[in-house]
């Protein structure tokens, strides 16, 4: 792994201490002051690493964890006032696995409340800034994890991806972000947003960093009925496989007029690099792509409206004071605890599920979802090994630009929601920056083909590295 030290803040370590103390010093330095990045909501108080001593694939590696993944030692707030100071009585399986592999949790990272957002501006604890340009958003909802990797606090981090919440911030911050196949990683201890779409994913400073953390996190867990009973191949060992002879489809529906011209140019150059690396490029069509965002913004809020019913002020979180009946406690606690975007999505989701609208919205969206799945299955059956697309139609946008326009914010997810709807794996890897701002290319693969997908991402990363690497900002 790349040494996360270096840069401003390193002087605070006085050159001594463990990887944990170096990472903690760096975390404090990047978050300090009103112009700080605000990556972390809580930091480890441990004086020693705390992970299992000895070997292990993550021996001594500091890892940042999104604040919707439950930890015993640190609060789990989901970026919400509702869970301010909440201490989980149990630990997420992925956190246990990181510790058993020798890694340690540096801190919990900022996020859009309950994962609902594409900019980390919906956090109740203030937005995270993009380390490459602090006037811009880091993307979201896992913006704190992406920024912590980009700022050099940690070499890798855990996030969650329901509609692009790992890949889009990875693209905006110039790091690697992986959303594995639905069922690849246990979600025990992940606070649910939309259960048919949520998947824990990994960030890395490099493809190898993200692949190594994924290899540790992946695998069946009897505590999560949706985790698959499948063996986990070595993702790291597969990184040398390259793309020679692989058929890489370029879906034309992703090259729309919504695509920023700079991103389009950067993407075209990345495509040529893949050709030079030996890939066979093929123009393909996924005709239902344009329906992915409307499908997602019915199904995800519908599931969220059900999942978030548990936040009632009775079992955990904040109970509104001065309430009377049980029902009044529910209403007052929920109304005071949830932020504007969460309320918007609960209302939208409850509407889509309500009598009289269920068939027109929810059931129709489920059927369109199955057509989106079929588009992908047809492409794989035609002999396409991987798909390659831009990760986001634009680079990182300025803080505040889309806060008052929910639809514009939702359209940030136009290239990423399809992988969640179809349950397939996807990875964002840095490509040429646009006017100094990071930009991402996305590989999508058939279910369970993370090895092939990560080999593609590594091949592209190596192509840039052989030309001196990418320089962001």
């Amino acid at each position, binding site marked *: 792994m790349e040494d996360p030290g270096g840069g401003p803040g390193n002087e605070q370590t006085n050159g001594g201490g463990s990887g944990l103390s170096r990472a903690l010093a760096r975390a404090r330095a990047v978050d300090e002051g009103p112009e700080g990045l605000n990556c972390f909501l809580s930091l480890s108080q441990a004086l020693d690493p705390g992970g299992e001593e000895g070997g292990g694939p993550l021996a001594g590696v500091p890892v940042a964890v999104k604040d919707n993944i439950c930890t015993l030692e640190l609060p789990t707030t989901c970026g919400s006032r509702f869970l301010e100071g909440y201490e989980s009585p149990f630990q997420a399986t992925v956190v246990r696995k990181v510790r058993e592999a020798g890694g340690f949790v540096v801190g919990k990272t900022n996020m859009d409340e309950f994962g609902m957002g594409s900019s980390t501006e919906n956090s109740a604890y203030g937005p995270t800034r993009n380390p490459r340009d602090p006037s811009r958003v880091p993307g979201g909802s896992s913006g704190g994890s992406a920024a912590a990797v980009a700022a050099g606090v940690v070499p890798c981090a855990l996030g969650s991806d329901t509609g692009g919440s790992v890949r889009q911030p990875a693209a905006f911050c110039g790091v690697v972000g992986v959303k594995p196949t639905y069922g690849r990683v246990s979600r025990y201890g992940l606070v649910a947003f939309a259960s048919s779409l949520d998947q824990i994913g990994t960030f890395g400073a490099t493809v190898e960093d993200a692949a190594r953390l994924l290899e540790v996190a992946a695998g069946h867990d*009897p505590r999560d009925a949706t985790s698959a009973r499948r063996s986990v191949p070595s993702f790291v060992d597969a990184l040398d496989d390259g793309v020679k002879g692989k058929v890489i489809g370029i879906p034309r529906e992703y090259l729309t007029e919504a695509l920023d011209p700079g991103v389009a140019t950067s993407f075209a150059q990345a495509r040529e690099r893949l050709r030079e690396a030996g890939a066979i490029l093929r123009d393909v069509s996924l005709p239902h792509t344009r329906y992915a965002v409307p499908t997602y913004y019915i199904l995800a809020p519908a599931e969220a409206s059900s999942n978030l019913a548990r936040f009632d002020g*009775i079992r*955990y979180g904040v*109970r509104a004071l001065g309430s009377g009946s049980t029902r009044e*406690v529910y*209403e007052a606690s929920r109304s005071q605890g949830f932020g504007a975007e969460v309320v918007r999505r609960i209302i939208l989701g409850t509407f889509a599920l309500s009598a009289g609208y269920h068939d027109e*919205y929810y059931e129709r969206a*489920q059927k369109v979802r199955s057509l989106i799945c079929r588009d992908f299955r047809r492409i794989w059956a035609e002999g396409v090994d991987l798909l390659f697309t831009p990760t986001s139609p634009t680079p990182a946008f300025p803080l505040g630009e889309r806060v008052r326009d929910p639809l514009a914010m939702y359209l940030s997810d136009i290239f990423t929601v399809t992988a969640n709807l179809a349950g397939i794996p996807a990875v964002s890897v840095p490509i040429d920056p646009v006017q100094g701002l990071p930009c991402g290319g996305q590989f999508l693969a058939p279910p369970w083909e993370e090895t092939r997908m990560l080999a593609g991402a590594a091949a592209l990363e190596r192509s840039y590295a052989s030309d001196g690497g990418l320089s962001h900002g």
Partner: protein
Amino acid sequence: MSVTKDDVRRIADLARLNLDPGTTDRLAEELNGILAHVKTLGEVELPTESRDAVGEPVPGEGSVFRDPDLHPDGLESGAPARGAPEWREGFFLVPGLPALTGEEGRVSSDDGEASR
């Protein structure tokens, strides 16, 4: 169709949310904007065998169930007390239920952890 303020109030009631009038107005307007975009789903020609076309989220995996003997960690040990607003002797405290008490109950605050 368009969503009215009354619709938003009805939905908020179902979702156990109190909305102030300004929020209700704003949400009605935003919902209409979002639903106008969602309307494009009406263009999609659905397969005729559409009853089987509902949801295929887990590639290659059938439905599976967790071992019923496998309990979540820590929930027997009183650990929820750390996170619960009010908790006593292994129970979550709730306000009285009118059906049981014959009147609107009040939140008990004489015992257990204070509301946070």
